[in-house]
Structure formats: structure tokens, C-alpha cells
């Protein structure tokens, strides 16, 4: 098999039949190249979108209160449902819930520091909101349990607020007035995945106390411990039932209490991506089949074209095995090398694309404070898949060459010689 002479003979044949070699090689290289591009593009799209999703915790859930729309236990509809701190304690310990944060809305929200002022949102929260909304701390710290317990007047400023009020000066420890009440700046943060950072966070208990909220809460942000739609729905139902029992409303009443689970959306979207993946695979396999047919076709023609040569070789003493070996080795070698070239070109193109995408991502990230917008990331292909595809084409080429080569090697040399 690894007889140098045989390879020299094959190389000599290839060198002198460039067109034939090129055509065989091209169909293989093209097939692999297209497959790499298809799969890479699919992966890139999938990666880009899932990255966008990951900006908030994917398992986040929100609850908000409203007015009942269904009469319940003898009570009229249109009754207002109010969440309180007691609900926070219930939710916190409910099975399947990881992080919980309540919010009390405060109006107005005029922020001022020295002579600088502006209108921003002050969000009251528990420390867990940091995990639910993937808030990044740039400086200092987030709201902590001590703030909650001691109803401290602490505030965590969004980066945009900090930039507007402080313009680069040291802010930690300074006092900012929110609706004319001084709050001590304890941290500076960025919204996870957001491009605007115009929210300020203050401890929920402080909010309630300072802005006359008593023990009232308006909504909850949670993260749940679920991996499937079913689990997510089960937890959502459990939350609804528990709160419905406490506040005496129908658990199915969406207007008494609204709820939204992000995980359900994420899973739905991932399903779409699975479908796109399958679609890409179907096209990819189609491309491969086209490649296989192309290679087979060319091999058939090659053997036909070489019938007379085979006759000559047999007349001067070539055994059938050596004839088959010559054709097969040539086919395998061409398809392997061409497949490799296709692989390298495809990978190269996708890596180049990746480079450009990353550059754009960085550029957009720079203008948006670290969070780039992109729908397309890391468009690369699993090397194992690419290798198997190449191997498939090589084997197909070998089989397509073997059948006619065997037939040609079997016929009487005189018949092969007559072939023109």
C-alpha cells in the first residue's frame, strides 16, 4: 500500500491530467466549503440570539398586582389586590424560587447633586434584584440586607445618572437628593445587557418609609429554578395559587395578578433555533449529497475515459488488483486533499467573518458602555462534523470509483483496448 513507486505513479497520473483532477477535487472542496458556511452561519445566528437572551437571567419571572376581573368567594370583581412585605416573605421561601425582590413605586424621581439635576427612575428593591436583572456593579456595591433592615438611605446610581450628576468625580459617599431627600451613594451600576443605565436603586424598605408606602409592594421580580417549560409553568402556577389564596382571588385571574416567565419565551425561541438547525442540516446534507453525486459522476467518467489505458496496462502485465488500486488511490487522494482544502477555506472564511463580527461587536460595545448589539456571534463549526463530512465524501468517491474500476479491471484486455 505504501509503496513509494505506486504513489509516484499516481502523482505522475494526476500531474498529467490536471482538468480531471481539478473537476473531481472541486466538487468535493465545494461541497465541504458550502457545508462549513451553512453550519457556521447557523451556529453564528444561534449564538448571537442566545447571547442577547442571556442578558437578563433567563429564568426571571415578574409578578404585578391589579384589580380582580372574576368574582371570588362572594366578593365582587374589580377589587384591588395589594402586595405587602408579607408576600415577599412568602415568595422568598416558596419552593422553586431562587431570588426574590419586591418593588414599591415612588413618583417624581427628580435627582440632584449640587447644581446638576435630572429626571431618572428610582427603583426600590431587595438585594436579589441584582441577580434577577443581571445588574453589573461598576463601583461600590449594590443594595444589601443591612440597607433593608436599617432602612438606610442608600442609593446605587446607574452609570448614566452618575455621568450626568458627577461627571467623573468621586461619587461614593456623596449625597444625592431624590425628590429633595438626601440619599448616600453606595455604588454605581450598569443594566445587564442594556444600553441605557438611567435607573437608580434604593432599598425597598427605605422607599416605603420615606415615600409613605407603609408595607406596600407593587411588583416582584424573581428567578425560578426551572429548566423546562413544564417546570416553569408549575412554579408559576404554585406562585399564583399561593398568592391567590392569601389575597382571595381566582388563581386564573390574570388581571388580579399578572405574571410573566421569561424562561417560557427563551425555550420557545430555542425551539425555533432547533428548527433552524434542522433546516440547516437538511440543506447541508443536500449539499453533501450533491457533492457525492458530483464525485461519483466524475469517477464514472474518469474510469470510462481510462478504459483504454487500463487495457494497455493489462496487456503489459497489470493485475486487476493493481488497476483497481491505481484508480482508487488516486480518487481517495484527490478527494481527501480537496476536502481538506474546502475545510480550510470554509473555516478560514468563517474565522474571518468572526473577526469582523467581533470588531463590530467591540465597536458597538464601546459606544454602548460594554454591551454590544449583535445577532451573529462566533460563527464556527464543530471540527468533528466537518471531518466526518469530508470522510463521507472521500468514501463516496472511493465507492464511486471502485465499482467501475472493478468492472474495467475484470474485462478482457482486448475489449478494453478496443474502447476508444
Amino acid at each position, binding site marked *: 500500500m505504501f509503496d513509494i*513507486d505506486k504513489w*509516484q*505513479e499516481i502523482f*505522475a*497520473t494526476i500531474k*498529467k*491530467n490536471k482538468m480531471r483532477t481539478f473537476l473531481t477535487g472541486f466538487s468535493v472542496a465545494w461541497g465541504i466549503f458550502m457545508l462549513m458556511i451553512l453550519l457556521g452561519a447557523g451556529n453564528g445566528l444561534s449564538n448571537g440570539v442566545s447571547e442577547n437572551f442571556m442578558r437578563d437571567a433567563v429564568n426571571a419571572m415578574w409578578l404585578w398586582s391589579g384589580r380582580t376581573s372574576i368574582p371570588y368567594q362572594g366578593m365582587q370583581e374589580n377589587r384591588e389586590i395589594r402586595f405587602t412585605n408579607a408576600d415577599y416573605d412568602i415568595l422568598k421561601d416558596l419552593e422553586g424560587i431562587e431570588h426574590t425582590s419586591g418593588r414599591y413605586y415612588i413618583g417624581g424621581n427628580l435627582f440632584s447633586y449640587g447644581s446638576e439635576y435630572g429626571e431618572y427612575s428610582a427603583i426600590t428593591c431587595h438585594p436579589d434584584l441584582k441577580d434577577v436583572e443581571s445588574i453589573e456593579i461598576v463601583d461600590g456595591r449594590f443594595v444589601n440586607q443591612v440597607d433593608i433592615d436599617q432602612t438606610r438611605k442608600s442609593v446605587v446610581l446607574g452609570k448614566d445618572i452618575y455621568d450626568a450628576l458627577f461627571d467623573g468625580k468621586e461619587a461614593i459617599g456623596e449625597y444625592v437628593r431624590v425628590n429633595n431627600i438626601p440619599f448616600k451613594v453606595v455604588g454605581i451600576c450598569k443594566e445587564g445587557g442594556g444600553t441605557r443605565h438611567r435607573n437608580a436603586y434604593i432599598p425597598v424598605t427605605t422607599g416605603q418609609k420615606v415615600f409613605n408606602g407603609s408595607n406596600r409592594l407593587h411588583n416582584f421580580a424573581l428567578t425560578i429554578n426551572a429548566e423546562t417549560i413544564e417546570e416553569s409553568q408549575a412554579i408559576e402556577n404554585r406562585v399564583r395559587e399561593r398568592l391567590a389564596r392569601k389575597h382571595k382571588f381566582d388563581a386564573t385571574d390574570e388581571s388580579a395578578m399578572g405574571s410573566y416567565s421569561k424562561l417560557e419565551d427563551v425555550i420557545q425561541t430555542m425551539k425555533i433555533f432547533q428548527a433552524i438547525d434542522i433546516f440547516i442540516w437538511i440543506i447541508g446534507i443536500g449539499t453533501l449529497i450533491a457533492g457525492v453525486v458530483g464525485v461519483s459522476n466524475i469517477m464514472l467518467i474518469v474510469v470510462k475515459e481510462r478504459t*483504454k*489505458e487500463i*487495457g*494497455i*496496462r*493489462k*496487456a*503489459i*502485465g*497489470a*493485475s*486487476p*488488483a*493493481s488497476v483497481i488500486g491505481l484508480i482508487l488511490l488516486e480518487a481517495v487522494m484527490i478527494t481527501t486533499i480537496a476536502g481538506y482544502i474546502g475545510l480550510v477555506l470554509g473555516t478560514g472564511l468563517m474565522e474571518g467573518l468572526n473577526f469582523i463580527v467581533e470588531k463590530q461587536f467591540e465597536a458597538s460595545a464601546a459606544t454602548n458602555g460594554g454591551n454590544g448589539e449583535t445577532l451573529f456571534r462566533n460563527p464556527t463549526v464543530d471540527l468533528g462534523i466537518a471531518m466526518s463530512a469530508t470522510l463521507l465524501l472521500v468514501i463516496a468517491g472511493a465507492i464511486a470509483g471502485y465499482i467501475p474500476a472493478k468492472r474495467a*479491471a*475484470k474485462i*478482457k*484486455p*482486448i475489449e478494453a*483496448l478496443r474502447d476508444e
Partner: protein
Amino acid sequence: MISLNNVHKSYVTGSNSLHVLKGIDLEINSGEFVSIMGSSGSGKSTLLNILGILDNYDEGSYYLNGSLVKDMSEKKAARLRNELVGFVFQSFNLISFKNAMENVALPLYYQGVNRKKRNKIAEEYLDKVGLLEWATHLPSEMSGGQKQRVAIARSLISQPKIIFADEPTGALDTSTSYEVMDILKEINDDGITVILVTHEHDIASMTQKIVRLKDGRIDEIIKNGELKNFQHQYAKELETA
């Protein structure tokens, strides 16, 4: 060297069967220079192909160098062809993408001789047929006579016992034909059996033994001494033609 006993051969195409050889008995000894003659369709090429194990036969027996050639595996036939016989064809049958030297060296490739050595031997044989300076030329760059001389060098390189030539001069003009015949005669002088098929009387008359085929049977065998007679008959045939 060669012994044929009642050899039959038919070609079957669809429902038609063409009985080409209808019982050939023939003995050819080592070192003979034989020509097989006959009109087209007389079966002379078929006979040569069977002798050269390029084709099989249906009935009878054929002994080549003492061993029976019948229902032989392609592998064994290939080895016999490689070691025992050399071929020269009317249409040269050189491999078009190989140069003269590589074409000549090819039989040695199938004997497992390494490239360097076989190319050197090929050059020697090209020198013998006077084409050493054409060693690196492709067949398409050569004249018919040159191509045939390359083919002869190729048939000789494996040092065969028999050379089979099917109309070796058929595609050549008269003077080139005579050159080729001179080479074949030299080969025969070296002790190699040469069997050629031709329909040209002047070519046949240069050999020592003429086997005339007619309708698939041997019509007559003219031996060396009777060549004069043959010339006479040849003239007579020309008259009737």
C-alpha cells in the same frame, strides 16, 4: 513453445453468434519468425489475441511454454503476459500522458522494479531502437514509425520469450514499415519468437513461416524454403484481383 489443438472461438452478440475460429491446430517452435495472414474476417487477429492471452477461447487446448492456458484467472494471465510475452499493436497503444521512457519502463513497474532502475533500462532499450534522444517526448510529439519503435522497445523490456505484433506496420508507410520489420528481424535473431499478423504480402514474405487463415481455418502453412513459391502465388493473386 506454442501448441494449439482444435481451438474454437465464437463471438456472441445478442442472439447472433459469429464462429470466428473453427478448429485451429498449430505448432510454433521457439525462435521462429511467423506471420499470420488472411483476408479481413478470417480470424487472424482473434488468433493472435488468443495466443497472447488477451482473449479467451471456447474449445480445444492451448499450451504456452508447456502450460495449459485455459480459464486462467486475470491475475495469473497478467503475470504470464508480463513475464512471457510482449505486444506490438497497429495503433501503438502507448499511454498518451506518459513520455517515451515512462511508456517503455511500464512493464518493469508491474514487475516491481524501482523507478530509477527501470528508467535506466528503458533508456537502454530506447537506444536500441534509436530513439534515446526522444526519451522525454510524449507520444503525441512523435511520428508513427517512432511510436511503433517505442512500442517495440516496451515489448522487449521485460525480456519476453515471444513478441506478438498485430499489424505492426498497418499504420505506417512502406519505408517505415521496412524499418520496423528490420527491428523485428533483429529481435528474432536474438532468439525471441516473433509472431505477427499482417495482410501485406511483402511484410509476410520477410518472415520465415506464413500461416494463411481462411474462414477460421488454417488454409496453408508456407515454410521458409517455399517462399519462392509463395511469391509466385502472390503474383497470381494479384492477377486475379
